């Protein structure tokens, strides 16, 4: 499952950020995940717990901030929350919309105990 490879990537990013600072322990890692990515937070946390064993992130809490899907209408410029994956403007019915939120997948920050 790709939550495992995402977890590994998250760990790599967190460890790299920690190594650029003097860090004894990583306490919390905050992720921003847009809902269009289909990430299952509980699975991600489970996988992270597995890959982080024996690293300075092994007790880190993984916080997943899930962002709802938002789109902007190309015609009337209304910005709206996309419900049930219907990418049609609720104001004017135009089907040509741009996704402005929902595809994010990044490590926002890490909280650490300094060395």
């Amino acid at each position, binding site marked *: 499952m790709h939550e495992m490879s995402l977890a590994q990537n998250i760990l790599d990013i967190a460890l790299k950020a920690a190594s650029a*600072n003097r860090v004894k322990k990583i306490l919390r890692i905050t992720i921003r995940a847009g809902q269009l990515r*289909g990430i299952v937070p509980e699975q991600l946390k489970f996988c992270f717990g597995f890959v982080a064993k024996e690293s300075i992130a092994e007790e880190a809490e993984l916080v997943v901030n899930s962002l709802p899907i938002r789109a902007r209408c190309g015609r009337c410029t209304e910005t709206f929350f996309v419900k049930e994956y219907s990418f049609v403007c609720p104001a004017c019915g135009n089907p040509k919309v741009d996704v402005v939120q929902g595809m994010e997948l990044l490590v926002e920050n890490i909280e650490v105990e300094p060395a």
Partner: protein
Amino acid sequence: MTIKIQVLNNILEINESYAEENRRIFRDSGTFVINLMSSPGSGKTTLLEKTLERVDPREVAVIEGDMQTTRDAERLERFGVPIVQINTGNACHLDGKMIHDALRDLDLRGVRLLVIENVGNLVCPAEFRVGEHAKVVVLSVTEGEDKPLKYPLMFREAALCVFNKVDLLPHLDFSLDEALHNARQVNPDLEFMSVSCTSGEGLAAWVDWLRARMEPGG
């Protein structure tokens, strides 16, 4: 005492950089690349066989992705096209690095079309760009009209949806109109075509679609 360190790193950054590097390789060789995706058993490999019967195999290369076996590559061997088979083991999708590594074994000089046949899976392959110019999703008419709604990312990412096995329509309670409506709801820009690898219906139009996007031959 705790310190917060801002990171703001894209979790898929490494994959994105491999995909960009692959794209550069394809640009240098003048190769049009499709990432062919579907559920298992929708007919990707058969569609590829029918394609190779209709284009000059000297201008085509294939990268095959499966968790296990080399069966798909073996089916295509008779066409004499360069093929690299990737066995992912337990990975359910191909990613940028796998394609980058496969390209080391592929000479793309003179190759105008590269087909990357992804692992049969409507979920994960859509998440991972590999440097392709277009994602093509194959949906066979035995799979149900609701699939675009159930797998929105796949149908949003695709440039073309190929409805396959349309020769079976008289035996099925499948509404092509409803499937189109559902897919358009998720992706209004999605192009569509209907084919049957069994009867040959629609295959000429499919090959025309590919040819229109391949660079002019030398």
